[in-house]
């Protein structure tokens, strides 16, 4: 087995929490500056990305093309600003470059472009497509006798796509223990479903863990904002050697900003000056 490179790992929980707050602040500042962009989803997936990139992934920003590096696919590509922010903090790009998000000629496309920015492992954006390339990477690792792990972050809305379940079947069929899916289970879709009471945005898909279990996956359910739980689940997923693991990370859309939490109107709305100031104050207060 060829070994990976690894630099810059952070295991201290307080430091991870500080990085999460910094990530959230940069997300809000960037979207405010760009005047457009998703907010709710990036805030709900922020802790997952921080923990993965700082605590778990065996990667080296100085060598982003290392064939033996761990892979990470943000299948819910509309949360790209969260990924770009974490990549910037991790050293893949200057933090100042976040200001180019969404702009013409930027490496930071609205949805991640594999060819635009080193550190991205797959193009995503059309929902439900990320798990399949993850299978390809896991099969490639097995074939090349490399021990890297592939992580795929799914939105709970996008797992309505049929391709996810084609992939769930095949990953299980090949017993890909070097593949882990993480569902950002924030339960708040863009529009929602009619129901008996008229209309609901709650739970775009019920019990994703049970559905993956039915396809033969190892299922771990955690609080997706708890760095202790995230680190533990990532360890358990890697340790599991009999087939793929899905981590259902229970999250809150808009997490960390009281007036954005559980609010679908913050799916893709940039904060104004005052809202940004209030949000930053709240993030810094929570760390004090």
């Amino acid at each position, binding site marked *: 087995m060829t070994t990976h490179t690894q630099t810059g790992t952070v295991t201290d929980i307080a430091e991870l929490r500080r990085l999460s707050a910094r990530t959230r602040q940069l997300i809000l500042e960037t979207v405010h500056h760009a005047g457009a962009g998703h907010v709710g989803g990036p805030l709900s997936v922020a802790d997952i990305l921080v923990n993965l990139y700082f605590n778990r992934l065996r990667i080296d920003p100085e060598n982003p093309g290392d*064939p033996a590096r761990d*892979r990470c696919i943000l299948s819910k590509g509309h949360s790209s600003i969260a990924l770009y922010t974490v990549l910037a903090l991790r050293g893949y790009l200057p933090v100042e470059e976040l200001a180019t998000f969404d702009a013409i000629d930027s490496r930071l496309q609205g949805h991640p*472009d*594999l*060819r635009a920015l080193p550190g991205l*492992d*797959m*193009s*995503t*954006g*059309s929902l439900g*497509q990320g*798990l*399949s*390339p*993850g*299978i*390809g*990477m*896991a*099969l*490639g*690792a097995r*074939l*090349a006798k490399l021990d890297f792990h*592939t992580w795929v972050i799914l939105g709970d809305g996008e797992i309505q796509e*049929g*391709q996810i379940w*084609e*992939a769930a*079947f*095949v990953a299980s*069929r*090949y017993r890909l223990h070097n593949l882990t899916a993480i569902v950002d289970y924030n339960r708040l879709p863009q529009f929602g479903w009619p129901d008996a009471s008229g209309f609901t945005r709650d739970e775009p898909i019920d019990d994703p863990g049970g559905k993956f279990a039915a396809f033969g996956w190892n299922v771990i359910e955690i609080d997706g904002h708890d760095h202790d739980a995230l680190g533990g689940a990532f360890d358990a997923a890697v340790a599991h050697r009999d087939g793929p693991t899905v981590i259902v990370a229970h999250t809150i859309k808009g997490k960390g900003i009281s007036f954005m939490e559980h609010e679908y109107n913050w799916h893709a709305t940039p904060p104004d000056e005052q809202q940004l100031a209030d949000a930053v104050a709240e993030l810094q207060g929570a760390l004090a």
Partner: protein
Amino acid sequence: MSATQTLLATEPRNAGVREAWGEGLVALGNRYANLVVLDGDLANSTKADLFAAAHPDRFFEMGIAEQNMLGVAAGLATTGYVPWISTFAAFVAKRALDQIRVVIAQPSLNVKMCGAYSGILPSKTGKTHQSVEDLAVFRAMPHVVTIAPADAVELQAAMAAMMEDVRPTYLRVTRDASPVIFADDYVFEFGKAHLLRRGSDLGIVGTGVQTVRALEAAELLEAEGISAAVLHVPTLKPLDVDAICDLAAATGLIVTAEDHSIIGGLGSAVAEVLSEHIPTRMRRVGLQDTYGESGPNDALLEKYGLTPRHVADAGLELLALKAGAKATGK
């Protein structure tokens, strides 16, 4: 434009196209350790089963789930493997199209998408399994090389060239054995058309197996005292613009021949080129904006207007128009 009779086979023979594809994969698999095959539960139809037997560790059954299969191929491509897709043209060109767009075409990943049972002769399975828009679909996608070989020899030559190329590629494969027109030492070049027959009265442009029928059409026309040139276009993209324009300049009348819709395929490609560079009166022989149906091959070719006679008649029609225009001074 090169008129090289040495390109052509001297002895008439038929050869299985899907068999050539399967055997070609096995041979390339021997030469390239990074060649892998993904199959949509059709390996015994496409003949990818030959590869599965020869290289079982590099054969991945993906089941009847094409969207996932193309996504898996993209992931494998990022780890240094070159995935070849085994399914029918009807499915690869439509069932997994958004996956191809986002994770293969846009990032230009090196995936070889092969469409078996293309055109309207996929045994007697009918319109669901016939593929009459695949060339249009892939030709319209940025970054995707689009190839339609004429016979088993050119198919294998194209496959060898594809392994030395890193672009995402669509390769059209037909089901049935068909006449071999190229000599065994034929070398495939991306974007190069071949003048297979010289002629002065009109030019026929063919692609895929329809080039074989174009050559037969030229024979029919010769018997009627008409000299028809035949140009074979194996790559719809990149397109050999110069060869097409040269043929139009030399003959003044152009007929296109394809076992595909006349919308978006070869006929469209040639019309686009000619109207920009050298406006030329032309006729497009192919599926006339229609789907096919089940039936014996001969009956299908006859009903949907793809026989050598149909190609020859399109040429005669153009010649009559030209004569009429001369007579009336237009």
